[in-house]
């Protein structure tokens, strides 16, 4: 019987109507409540959703404007002197590049690459990192000795050097980019999961599971995994922007996404020679990269705070303060700082 079947049965047994009873708030409901009150996190989420929608709709924009991402417009897309067009002219929202391609469409397509690389590598790295971390933490002994040293080795590896050599050997491609980023992302997650697993496996409820005859795999994935979701969620959220920057770096160095396919990294690389005469060529892809990674980082911080029950007090203090200062024109940052200061005084 597989783990998924077991889990499915578990959920099957849980579904059913609870009548008349007051439903307690689960950990996730509480987390969501805290996250909702974190304005920075909510703003980040909105930004990420907007970017994701724009990325998904990139072909729609391409169809509407009749501008493909690699389509050159030598007649309408270049200035009289043959340089890039500035934003807004001739229906090019972000202007054009030196070949007369629509920069807006290229940045949108770049978002597709960035988000795809960020999410897919994070998903794979999380699955690998959690599995390996659980196994080494749970089994201990020589399994742990071997795998933990392997994790250390990966973390100590000069990743740019490996990425360079892999790109040279196999030729740069999206697959290589994803493989390299995944390979360098799982180890950090593994190390945290291993540490958590080491402490969780000593808990009495794990002993209870063993006394019922649960298999090691069941204990790892049914009993231990739910207790690991909080730290893993934070790590995963924070590893998305890291992967996006990593992809941009590789593409910038010419080892990642190859032209004419657009990626923020290779657009920035091309823009190097032109930004003095065409600021938009550099600014728009750079801003896209900055806003996306910043939003993911801020969301990650928000998730971490929301998962920590102690932050409830900070938010509560912030709300109290806001009511008191209503109309005095203080900013939210002031409130937060004041409440954190007050909190540290109380503690």
């Amino acid at each position, binding site marked *: 019987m597989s783990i998924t079947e077991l889990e499915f049965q578990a959920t099957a*047994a849980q579904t059913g109507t609870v009548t008349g009873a007051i439903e307690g708030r*689960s950990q996730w409901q509480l987390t969501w409540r805290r996250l909702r009150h974190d304005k920075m996190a909510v703003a980040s989420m909105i930004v990420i959703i907007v970017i994701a929608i724009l990325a998904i709709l990139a072909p729609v924009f391409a169809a509407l404007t009749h501008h493909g991402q690699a389509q050159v417009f030598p007649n309408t897309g270049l200035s009289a002197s043959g340089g890039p067009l500035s934003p807004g002219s001739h229906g090019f929202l972000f202007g054009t590049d030196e070949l007369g391609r629509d920069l807006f469409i290229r940045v949108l397509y770049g978002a597709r690459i960035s988000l795809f690389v960020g999410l897919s590598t994070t998903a794979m790295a999380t699955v690998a990192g959690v599995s390996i971390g659980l196994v080494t933490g749970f089994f201990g002994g020589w399994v742990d000795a071997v795998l933990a040293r392997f994790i250390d080795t990966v973390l100590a590896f000069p990743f740019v050097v490996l990425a360079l050599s892999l790109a040279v050997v196999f030729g740069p491609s999206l697959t290589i980019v994803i493989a390299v980023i995944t390979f360098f992302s799982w180890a950090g997650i593994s190390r945290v999961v291993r540490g958590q697993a080491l402490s969780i496996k000593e808990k009495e409820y794990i002993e*209870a599971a063993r*006394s019922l005859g*649960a298999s090691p795999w069941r204990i790892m994935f049914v*009993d231990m995994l739910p207790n690991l979701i909080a730290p893993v969620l934070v790590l995963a959220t924070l590893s998305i922007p890291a992967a996006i920057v990593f992809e941009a770096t590789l593409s910038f160095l010419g080892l990642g996404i190859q032209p004419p396919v657009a990626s923020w990294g290779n657009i920035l690389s091309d823009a190097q020679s032109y930004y003095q005469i065409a600021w938009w060529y550099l600014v728009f892809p750079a801003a896209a990269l900055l806003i996306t990674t910043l939003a993911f980082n801020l969301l990650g911080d928000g998730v971490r705070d929301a998962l920590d029950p102690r932050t409830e007090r900070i938010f509560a203090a912030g709300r109290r303060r806001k009511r008191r200062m209503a109309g005095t024109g203080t900013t939210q940052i002031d409130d937060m700082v004041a409440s954190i200061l007050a909190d540290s005084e109380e503690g």
Partner: protein
Amino acid sequence: MSAFVDPEPGQSMITDSLLADDVLVQVDNLVKHFPVKGGGLIGRTVAQVKAVDGVSLTVRRGQTLGLVGETGCGKSTLARCIAGLIPATSGTITFEGHNITNLPRRKMQPFRREIQMIFQDPYGSLNPRRRVGSIIGDPFTIHGTATGAARKKAVQELMERVGLNPEHFNRYPAEFSGGQRQRIGVARALALRPKLIICDEPVSALDVSIQAQVLNLLADLQDDFGLAYLFIAHDLEVVRHVSDSVIVMYLGRVAESGPKQPVYETPRHPYTAALLSAAPAADPEAAAARHRIILTGDVPSPINPPSGCRFHPRCPKAQDLCGTEEPALEVKVGDVETHLTACHYPVQTGENLADAARAVRGEAS
């Protein structure tokens, strides 16, 4: 009289052949040593913690065997060995005639249904991230005895049986009080209809009023399902209340064992006598009248237990012999044949040990 310690189990099987059918679990000369690893890259074993050092006991069907002793005397280690949670160093554990000592997990599986455990900490023993329905339903899932709707029904019946609202199966453990959580633990242990439930200090983490409720629940369940309990506690009154027989452990060994009444009323081992004299009495007059035997020193380290009788450095009656020769667990003159004591100089009826202890400490009486 139901459960007692066998000094020589092979012999007892013959003499007690009439009672042999009654035996549910037989533990013979069980030893559990934990290695103490030295520092360095390759941890060398530098010492052994002798947590359990040659304990024999018998649990009989439908009866309760109480196990008492100070913290660190090996009670919980013994329980975990019997439950198959940690491997024994040596000795045998027999369940209904089957040797279940150190069985691999798969072979142990059928016996897991028969031997279940209730844990001490009602907070630590329930997974905080799983719903109560899943926790109580786990035994059914693991052993494949009920799935889907049947499983949910079985879980709700169990919850009702242990006094929980069956509607609450969808809640998390954090939404329950300590007593309710312990009931969840009882329901989980009961799910597979075991024959033996090992209760590892099941009420010591609970409020006194809640303790009584949980103890009464355990007693009701024993009557209904014919359960045997191995009941571990350090509260002597709790053990007196629930047990048919009692074993007193000291530093990994049995000090005294036998039916509840003689052990409590005429303790033979000075350690048992000291424990009993230290238990608070509810009646103020009895409390004032009792002579407390105050022991000196702490429990010695189980890494390096004292020679001879392990209790001799703290014993008010200790003589030279106690430090050299280990006393056998045997019947003392005037006791029933099931009341066994491991002592060279057992306490005599009417003997005032409190004064002897005071003399040892060098105080005027």
